[in-house]
């Protein structure tokens, strides 16, 4: 039951769900939730390949850097969301049209 393929399938399901969340939700915070799911799928793939294929710890290091980058991304993204809410009084993605023209 526990093999490389099962981890890859779980990670694929996680990635597809994150992508569908990102594409179909209209709330900016929900889009950030989808991005977190996609980053987790990538980190799970790195660790699975690191155990079953390469047998060293480079995948673990890469997952740690993915977690660091996700924390930085969440901080900046949520700051932008809060600033957007202060300006527009909503966080609906269709209201973000200030850069259109």
């Amino acid at each position: 039951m526990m093999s490389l393929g099962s981890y890859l399938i779980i990670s694929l399901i996680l990635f597809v769900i994150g992508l569908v969340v990102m594409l179909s939700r209209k709330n900016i915070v929900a889009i950030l939730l989808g991005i977190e799911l996609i980053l987790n799928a990538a980190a799970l793939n790195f660790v699975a390949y690191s155990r079953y294929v390469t047998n060293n710890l480079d995948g673990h290091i890469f997952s740690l850097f993915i977690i660091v980058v996700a924390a930085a991304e969440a901080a900046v993204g949520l700051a932008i969301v809060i600033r957007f809410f202060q300006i527009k009084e909503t966080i609906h993605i269709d209201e973000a049209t200030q850069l259109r023209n």
Partner: protein
Amino acid sequence: MFIQLLFASSATLTVGCALGVLATKNLMHSCIFLLGSLMGVAGLFATLGADFVAVTQIMVYMGGVVILMLFAVMLTGGKDFISRAQNLLGLPSSMGNKWTYSVGGLVGLVLLLTNIRLISNVMNSHAPKVIGDEYPSTVSQIGHLLVKDHVLAFEISSVLLLGALVGAAIIARPRKQK
């Protein structure tokens, strides 16, 4: 046996809670489902022998990022939560409409089929390697790797975190109303 049980429960938790993130209407419930999904991924890391990554996932993601997102949800409720305007599909406006769902479903389906093809190639070409049940601690090795082989990335990530936190504080600071 315990590892198999942990794998099965973690996989179920991961996939089920990710579906909950997709399906639930309330954004707060969506954040709580994300918490469960991250917990499942941490359990999967533990079954892969990545103890340090699993604990870091729990501390940074579940203790930091999701709490930050919960605060953002609570600070930006606004009129989306009050009016609860419904569109044609009967969903609240923060959930998207039928066009976004059909586009998202189509892209997800194409990605799923192509990736299943790729994964089946991987599974057929690699004979399943028998991995023993030993799970040595990885903490000291990761520490040595971080300050020897990957020290440049380590320092760059510290600068990145500093820049991100200062930038977030500058972006979100309250400004005087004109």
